[in-house]
């Protein structure tokens, strides 16, 4: 059973950078699923429970989730050197690839097939984002806010940001603040 196998410790920050580099290069449309497989099942640096803990922490903290996770994991094993190694491993190669694509796109934007392909990919990108949200909607069922208030906050956010185009700072601080306050009150009862 995999559960009986002991956890490993990454040999060095460099080793860690390579592992995060490998994860990033496999992650089309997000790195999270790959990260779970690599960190928990292949490298065995974290247990499933530890992975979930780091994931929720990475989600609660502002900033990109997977970047936060890389920082936290790197920091736990090697301090700031580990955090820097994980971050550089995660971002360097994909950054070069994406810039190359962007530069090529500028050269070939005049071709109708390329412009059309990007339109098609743009529509799929929108669908992927909406689909991810739909998958996560079930998670609101057990929210301490209660189903109806939680759904109302989600809907209000969609309208305020997507349709009325209010600035995000106002929505996160105002609506988010009210929502957190309500959750605090509900949790205390």
């Amino acid at each position: 059973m995999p559960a009986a196998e002991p956890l490993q410790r990454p040999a060095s920050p460099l080793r860690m950078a390579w592992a995060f580099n490998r994860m990033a290069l496999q992650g089309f449309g997000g790195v999270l699923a790959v990260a779970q497989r690599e960190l928990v099942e292949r490298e065995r640096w974290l247990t499933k429970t530890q992975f979930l803990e780091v994931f929720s922490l990475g989600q609660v903290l502002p900033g990109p989730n997977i970047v936060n996770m890389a920082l936290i994991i790197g920091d736990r094993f090697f301090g700031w050197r580990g955090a820097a190694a994980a971050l550089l491993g995660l971002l360097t190669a994909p950054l070069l690839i994406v810039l190359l694509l962007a530069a090529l796109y500028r050269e070939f934007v005049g071709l109708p097939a390329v412009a059309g392909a990007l339109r098609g990919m743009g529509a799929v990108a929108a669908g992927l984002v909406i689909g991810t949200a739909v998958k996560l909607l079930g998670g609101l069922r057990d929210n301490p806010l209660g189903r109806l208030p939680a759904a109302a906050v989600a809907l209000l956010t969609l309208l305020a940001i997507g349709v009325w185009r209010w600035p995000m700072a106002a929505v996160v601080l105002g609506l988010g603040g009210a929502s957190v306050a309500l959750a605090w009150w509900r949790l205390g009862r």
Partner: protein
Amino acid sequence: MNAVLFGAHGLDSGVLPALFLHFGMLSLLAIGGALTTAPDMQRYLVGERGWLSDAQFTSSVAIAQAAPGPNLLFVAVVGWNIAGLAGVAATMAGSLLPSTTLALAASRYGDRRRESRAMKAFSAGMAPLTLGLLLATGWVLTAPVRDSWGALLLVPFTVLMLVKTKISPIWLVGAGAAIGAFGWAG
């Protein structure tokens, strides 16, 4: 060379601090992933400043989605399209410096307080907001294709495939590219 370094728009250097500051502020608000800041970026860059067109903004996100790696990298493509490599440096530094500093400090400090009422209230209260932001992001990304039935049909098709099947997103992105290349999303 200047076109590579500073982009094709001939923007003055005041653009870079403005990019750094706005992306830095957004990174601190980005609860639930980098993509949730896309609607506000679009509002600021396309609507308020006019540095990018709607189509340029959505294609920046599409290029980043088509490449491997964290979704965050769409920020680099946006920077590239506004001001070349200098723009990449400004948007990436803005998106990473404040949030990474905060994440490191908070994870060290918050390790012991994860079970506290405040932390629980924070994650519970922010969860529906995060979902609303994701939905708004998806809606804003459909802006440049709302005039085409072919492209608009791709959106619910993608949602359905993602939710109901285990197919990898890369195949959906590839299918979207092929359908678009044949002119069916125009």
